[in-house]
């Protein structure tokens, strides 16, 4: 019976989640135990931060200029063309003792999106890759311009500050130029921030990484095996207002070669600003004195994120996200305008799957 087979499948899915939860809880308990042990066992991992697995982030009203950058992307496939819309917005919040005293936008609070048409015969995966290259290129380019204009104390990107290895493109392939421009944008921002004493960090909402648990359990503190995501394991291991020590990205990144010397400047930690939310992963750039930089980044992120018990994301990131978000209506309007100018052609016909004769 179909109902019986569905029921069995549901039971099986639930069972696998239950098993995974046992694994997660074991790993989490292990981390709590390690955190309570003498510091010597962690000295190899986090000597700069007092050899502590978890560190307390003091709660205080944030004062300073914080710049948040985010991008929005929409893509649509037509019969012979792919259309990608991208925009990025930078938002400057100026806080004084925890109170927002001023805000500004770059290039504006509602900039027009950039349309990009892909007429080359790319596979769906390649189009997705193109989108994933074009978007950070736009975001980091905008971030650099905004940083030049506003000179903030800290710049918070929405997402990682290192490119994802999966998006690496063949330099001679159709996306090679875009990829190298993207890397150029990353490096340009790193350089500007390091040269001008601007803290650069990226807030990753739903990180899938498990580098933290792997490195702790591989450092002589043998724990239960787990490939759970770090944020899941740390969900109840970290208390509100705590963060992990800072890990280096260099070993983990497969893009060290592309980023040149900057790869060794990128670190990350997990922080839990909201009691009922999962921890967020924060990447940051540090020239030297990782511990001090991590403390300043953690202070800014925690004290601009801790106001909602179930959503711990910096306020400036929330605003930038809202400003950058593109709506389907934007895509429809721009697509229509392009069609009007291009004239009738089968290339701009909607895909069959979107044009079924019956609902």
């Amino acid at each position, binding site marked *: 019976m179909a109902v019986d087979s569905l029921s069995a499948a549901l039971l099986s899915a639930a069972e696998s989640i239950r098993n995974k939860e046992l694994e997660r809880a074991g790993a989490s308990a292990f981390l709590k135990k390690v955190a309570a042990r003498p510091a010597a066992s962690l000295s190899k991992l986090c000597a700069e931060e007092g050899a502590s697995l978890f560190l307390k982030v003091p709660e205080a009203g944030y004062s300073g200029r914080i710049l948040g950058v985010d991008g929005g992307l929409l893509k649509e496939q037509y019969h012979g063309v792919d259309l990608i819309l991208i925009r990025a917005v930078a938002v400057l*919040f100026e806080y004084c003792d*925890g*109170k*927002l005293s001023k*805000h500004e936008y770059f290039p504006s*609070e509602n900039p027009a999106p950039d349309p990009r048409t892909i007429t080359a015969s790319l596979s769906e995966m390649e189009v997705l890759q193109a989108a994933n290259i074009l978007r950070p290129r736009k975001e980091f380019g905008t971030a650099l311009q905004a940083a030049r204009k506003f000179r903030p104390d800290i710049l918070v990107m929405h997402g990682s500050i290192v490119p994802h290895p999966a998006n690496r493109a063949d330099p001679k392939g159709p996306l090679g130029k875009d990829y190298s421009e993207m890397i150029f944008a990353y490096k340009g921002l790193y350089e500007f921030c390091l040269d001008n004493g601007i803290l650069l960090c990226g807030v990753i909402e739903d990180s899938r990484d498990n580098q933290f648990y792997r490195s702790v359990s591989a450092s002589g503190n043998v724990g239960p095996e787990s490939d759970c995501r770090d944020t899941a394991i740390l969900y109840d291991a970290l208390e509100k207002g705590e963060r992990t020590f800072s890990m280096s990205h260099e070993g983990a990144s497969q893009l060290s070669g592309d980023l040149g010397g900057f790869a060794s400047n990128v670190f990350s930690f997990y922080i839990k600003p909201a009691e009922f939310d999962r921890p967020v992963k924060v990447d940051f750039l540090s020239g030297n004195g990782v511990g001090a930089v991590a403390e300043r980044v953690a202070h800014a992120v925690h004290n*601009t994120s801790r*106001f*909602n*018990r*179930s*959503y711990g994301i910096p*306020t400036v990131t*929330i*605003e930038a996200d*809202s400003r950058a978000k593109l709506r389907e*209506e934007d895509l429809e309007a721009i697509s229509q305008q392009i069609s009007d100018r291009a004239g009738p052609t089968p290339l701009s016909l909607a895909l069959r799957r979107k044009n079924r004769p019956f609902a």
Partner: protein
Amino acid sequence: MAASSAPPAGPAATAAMEKIGTVISTMEGPSTDSFSFVIDRAEGAVPVRKDEFVSVEFEDGRVIARVEAVRKTNRYFARAESVREYGKETEIASLFPIDSWEFLVADARVLGVFQNGPADLPVARPTFPVSPGSSVRKMESGKLGRFLGFEDGGINIGEVEHHKLACRLKASRLFQKHLAILAMSGAGKSHLTRVLIEELLDRKREQGRLGIVVIDIHGEYASFSDPGPYKARTAVFDCSEFQIAVPDLSGRELAGFMPHLTAPQRRALDAAVRGLKREMREKGNTYDIKDVIASVETDEDLAKKRPVRDGLIAQLEDLEFTRLFSAKSVPPLQGLVLPGTATIFDLNRMTNPHAKQILISYLTRRLFDMRQRGAVCPYVEIVEEAHNFAPQTEKSSNALARGILEKIAREGRKFCASLVIISQRPVNLNTTILSQCNTHIIMRVTNPNDLDNIGKGSEGITAETLRSITTLRVGEAFIVGEAVNHPVPVRIRDRRSPKPRHSATLEESAREFEDASGRRREDASEFV
């Protein structure tokens, strides 16, 4: 003459008008009936308000619309749980730039179209929607006046809400097919009525002057005869002294004041009245209600039908008790209603409700008869508390005037006898009369039954306008029907006539009473 100050239609005419918003695309529109627009931000000013008229250029000309609702949106306050969370420790405004997310969106109802071409082209029906992205502009006064059907030199009852435009209604459109003023107590009905009387009194001969008859139940309009601009054109009659001349009444008319009479009693009364009239003709004497009673009492035929006679006498004595009937008419009605003058019948001191019914019934009937014969000028009769005199459900004995008011409502237009019906309980008002009032001026009403009745009885009133009626402030009104091309929200102008005599507040009245009592006590003790 239609308002002629309107500039010609077309894009050039709109060049100077202020842009206040942009039409947006929603699930519902733009359609031929409605559209929404996002309102431009204006520092320190509210660019557009509910009930304001706006215009949008489009292919065929200019669409005129009225703002039916204005909404504010702010994504930072869209989710209750987030508002509570972020607001726990501090104000949300101290964390996020909430101001920059606030949008004002207005919903507008399309009313008509000024077509491109000569300025005197009639207003057309909307047959095509405006485009998203079109600019929404304020409406210039001259054009709006023409659109709404105002007339230079018309009855000026106030200013169109949110526009610097006098609401000048064409008198014939306002009065000829009768007017109803509907509002709850204290909403400003009497004030509006004063304004209407002033406007009618101020009309010049060449504009066509009407006689004004006011059935003033609470003595609110007697102050028109106080020193001031209207003293010379106002006559006030204290109805406690009003006398109906019995010799002027036929037996049938007299019986009309006694609805419980049986057919034999009517016949007996008719015979008695005919006898008295014959005697009056022969001997040159006159008679009053006592003589009618005496005639019935001494009638030999009736002596054999005592139940008929006694019942008739009892009802005639009831009429006598009202003290309304005598041998001579006071005041004489002939010459009482004159063009450009107000005749106010002050019923304030009359306490007998039956007497009031008789008086209004008699007066209204007589005036209408005279008007039909051309014995009085075209006139407007203003009836306060009309639901008491023309109720929907009361027995006819308690609604003596209903029949004649209904008749005037139906036929008055042909004879230029107009009614202004004023009521605070529209639900109790006779539906025939209300439906024959082609213009309604509706002020604040909150009773759901009354609102429902207004909704059903007022043409052109939308559900949104009906909702607005509950929130009108004192002195604000909606005009719907014949007098205007579209429902118009109006703020009634200030009066020019002297202050009403009975306008003291509760506190003032209480103080006055105690002061007077104190003086009486002092006088008495002095006397002792």
